[in-house]
């Protein structure tokens, strides 16, 4: 299959998946207390909808997001803890379901890479500055001094000189 029809198919599928069902609201979920509702909103705000990947479960209108909201809601009603619910979803959908990836060996580069880069860059910068400061003015030999003198005083070698233009 050539890429173009496949991309078209994927886009169509994504559009369908994101726009198919009528608008979902959180109205259908009933909570015993405002605190519980707050917790629910927090939880689904931290989870990614895998269909519309830049939306959280809270924001997404995808059908799958509604299924997962129901699942999260049900688990909360069953008295599952925050961590248990997260664990449940990660076991099925992987770390990608979390907006904030966990710190573990495979994500070290993600978490610490930028700091390492800043550190290395800062070190190189400092070293370059120090070296420039320490470096003495270059020594010129007598012959080189003579040549500079000659170049500076010689007529016709300065820019804008008529001779220069003519040549």
């Amino acid at each position: 299959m050539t890429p173009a029809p496949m991309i078209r198919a994927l886009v169509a599928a994504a559009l369908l998946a994101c726009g198919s069902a009528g608008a979902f609201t959180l109205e259908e979920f009933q909570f015993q207390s405002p605190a519980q509702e707050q917790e629910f909103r927090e939880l689904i705000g931290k989870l990614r909808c895998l269909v519309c990947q830049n939306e959280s479960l809270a924001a997404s209108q995808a059908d799958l997001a509604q299924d997962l909201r129901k699942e999260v809601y049900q688990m909360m009603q069953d008295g599952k803890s925050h961590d248990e619910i997260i664990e449940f979803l990660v076991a099925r959908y992987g770390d990608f379901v979390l907006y904030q990836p966990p710190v573990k060996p495979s994500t070290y580069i993600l978490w610490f890479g930028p700091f390492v880069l800043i550190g290395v860059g800062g070190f190189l910068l400092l070293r370059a500055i120090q070296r420039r400061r320490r470096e003495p003015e270059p020594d010129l030999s007598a012959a080189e001094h003579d040549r500079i003198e000659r170049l500076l005083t010689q007529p016709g070698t300065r820019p804008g000189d008529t001779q220069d233009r003519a040549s």
Partner: protein
Amino acid sequence: MARSQSRSKSSYLVPLGIFLALAALLFYGLGLDPKKVPSPLVGKPAPSFELESLLEPGKTISSDILKGKMSLVNVWASWCPSCRQEHGELIRIARESDVQMIGFNWKDERRAALEMLRRYGNPYVLSVFDPENQVGIDWGVYGAPETFVVDAEGIIRHKRIGPIDQRVWEEEILPVIEQYRSKG
């Protein structure tokens, strides 16, 4: 002096090298499909299920059918255009290969699903019906089509996200099947 000159020349090449490396990395990244999220289930036992048969309402099919045979579990739905696109290839695979092809009808309506099988053929030995996404969540399904390779011991060995064509079958799925067949 010559030394410092050569150093400054090569130090011009360093940013160029970094730029080229970064450009290559980003160019490689352009070719990746963000829709393909690796499944944490690969290497783990397939989640068990008891679902109604798609073809015989009222009859229950359990995940025991996965035991003892190399299986492909194909998640599909009649509303999914890519599923229709891969359907012909699935039929070819079912005919030419000895893997057990299980249909996992997902978030669909029975009538529409049966209509699609009637019109385009039925590649599946068995079809389970999960309209409410009860088992789909356990399997980490987030779209259709998805296809799981499950070995004879019931361990998920591979998950294909997106449609299967002949190239995907030959280069991606068949090698996994061959690799785990000997052990099964």
